[in-house]
């Protein structure tokens, strides 16, 4: 058996906000191609951890390493250009633009890099990017809505489109912050189906979630966070059976 390739390593990360120790001694290894879920009760530090990984927050100590590159200290756009895309709890989309343009912008950013003074070409003549975007919209089942105003989409459709915006960049690592938060059961199920479909593409994913249904149907590995510490780590079955986890998160003996 070959050694699994660790693509994301959160190494000894601490994060303090004043007197509050939001993250303590976090050590997390995410293996290539796996779906790694981070669960925990409200206030456990899940979002803080995600924001440290993506460069929105600087850790008080420790560092985040992605495929041999230290992410700590880099800006979000630089981290994205390294191959990390992010889905937000509340979909972050271009509400004023059409669905097609929403998906074309990340494709252009992937192709042209962080900045390109690309003023002479007409967007109408970017056939390759457009076809790629239309193809991606087919994949997430939104092709018929491509000319719609993104701001007028339903919550579930905004999420699907946001996923398409991330996937078109072919990221090596996809971070999902509660991808089904605030969704109806129906929208939650379609989103899970979509995420399962993506899974077959071999991309590494980190999911922050507190919906158990979502976590156990998607994750290969689960880390349980409570009060800023990782209290358990393992496969879904190992985590489910762990008494510490039951006490801290799944309701304990009560």
């Amino acid at each position, binding site marked *: 058996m070959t050694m699994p390739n660790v693509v994301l390593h959160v190494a000894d990360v601490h994060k303090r906000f004043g007197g509050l120790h939001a993250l303590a001694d976090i050590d997390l290894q995410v293996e290539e191609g796996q779906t790694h879920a981070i669960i925990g009760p409200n206030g456990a530090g899940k979002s803080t951890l995600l924001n440290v990984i*993506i460069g929105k927050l600087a850790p008080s100590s420790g560092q985040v390493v992605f495929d041999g590159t230290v992410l700590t200290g880099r*800006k*979000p*756009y630089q981290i*994205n*250009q390294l191959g990390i*895309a*992010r889905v*937000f709890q509340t979909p*972050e*989309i*271009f*509400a*004023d*633009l*059409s669905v*097609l*343009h929403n998906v*074309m*912008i*990340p494709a*252009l*950013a*992937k192709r*042209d*890099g*962080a*900045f*390109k*003074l*690309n*003023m*002479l*070409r*007409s*967007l*109408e*003549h*970017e056939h390759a990017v*457009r*076809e790629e975007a*239309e*193809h991606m919209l*087919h994949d997430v089942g939104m092709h018929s809505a*491509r*000319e719609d105003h993104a701001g007028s989409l339903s919550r579930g459709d905004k999420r699907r489109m946001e996923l398409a*915006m991330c996937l078109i*960049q072919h990221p090596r690592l996809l971070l999902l912050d509660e991808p089904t938060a605030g969704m109806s059961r129906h929208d939650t199920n379609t989103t899970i189906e979509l995420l399962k479909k993506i899974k077959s593409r071999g991309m590494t994913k980190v999911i922050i979630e507190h919906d158990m249904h979502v976590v156990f149907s998607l994750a290969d590995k689960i880390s349980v966070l409570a009060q800023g510490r990782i209290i358990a780590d393992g496969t879904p079955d190992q985590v489910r059976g762990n008494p510490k986890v039951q006490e801290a998160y799944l309701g304990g003996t009560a």
Partner: protein
Amino acid sequence: MLAMPRKDLILFLGFAAAVLAMPIWLQPFGAAYPDLLNRFAIFAIFAVGFNILFGLTGYLSFGHAAFFGVGSYAAVWSFKLLSMDAVPALLFAVIISGLFALAIGFLSLRRSGIYFSILTLAFAQMSYNLAYSVFTPITNGETGLQLSLNDKRYLDRMFFEAGAGLPSPTLFGVTLSGYVAFYFCAFFLIATFFIAQRVTGSPFGMMLKGIKSNQTRMNYTGVNTRPYTLAAFVISGMYAGLAGALLAITDPLAGAERMQWTASGEVVLMTILGGAGTLVGPVIGAWLIKYFENIFSAINDGILSQFWGFLPEGAQHTAVLISSKFVGEGWFLTLGLVFVLIVVFLPGGVMEGVRRIASMIRPNKPTPASADSSATKPHPAE
């Protein structure tokens, strides 16, 4: 590479025809004389450029008159030192205002929203005050920068002797006055409209729209937004400099009042009144404001008492007293009122009004964009 989508080409040709025919179709409005037509073209350039920043990125600058003023000063200096020809004056003005915009934009764009607006306003007011104080050797202070008989004009002197009296701006020897000056300005309006159209329809323009719509998503999409906004800022500053230089070409003097905050505010009004983010809107806004400014500021008490002549004497006196506050020097009061009405009832400006009327006439017509794309299916159903 310079090929254009058909609907852009139609818009461009229609726009060019409308501009070139201005001396004809403005005749019934009593606006078809070169002096006013020049201002129409010049301020339309200013507004089209301003819209590249404000309409596409959403960054509202309250200091663009500074670049307009710098363009005017630079053009007059080119007349004084180099040549009375318009080409070096324009080049010099566009380069100087571009550099000036680069410096101010670099500092101001470290903030967004209201802080950005305040920073640009502060820099413009600083420029205005410096023009009256420290920089009087360059700006000639309150008198304004003018041509004089002692000017060097080194470039001209290499080719011919100075004539008697003050020379006028020329283009390759042709004096730029009257309709020649108008068509000179009109050429630049059409050219800058073309550039604005290209920028808006390019991948770069799409990135600017993305920045306006959601800057957070832009950052997490791998886009460094700062150079994009700075590029838009510098381009719009160069447009303002070009407009300022054209004003100096049609009337070779430059004063600091061109840099005042009211002048910065005026271009904001033009853009919003016409429709920010649209191509034609800022042009229409500029024309409407310059046209009504011309009419309203010319009205005096005599004309008003004639207008209210049908009223009994006491009522006539009151009517004249009240309405006189809205005309002449008080024309800005009328402009303010119209602006309030537009923002409250028609936030998209004149262009939104046009769209609303068009959709009332043709309720279920599909937009050209969706009709176009459904016709070109790139791949079969899976």
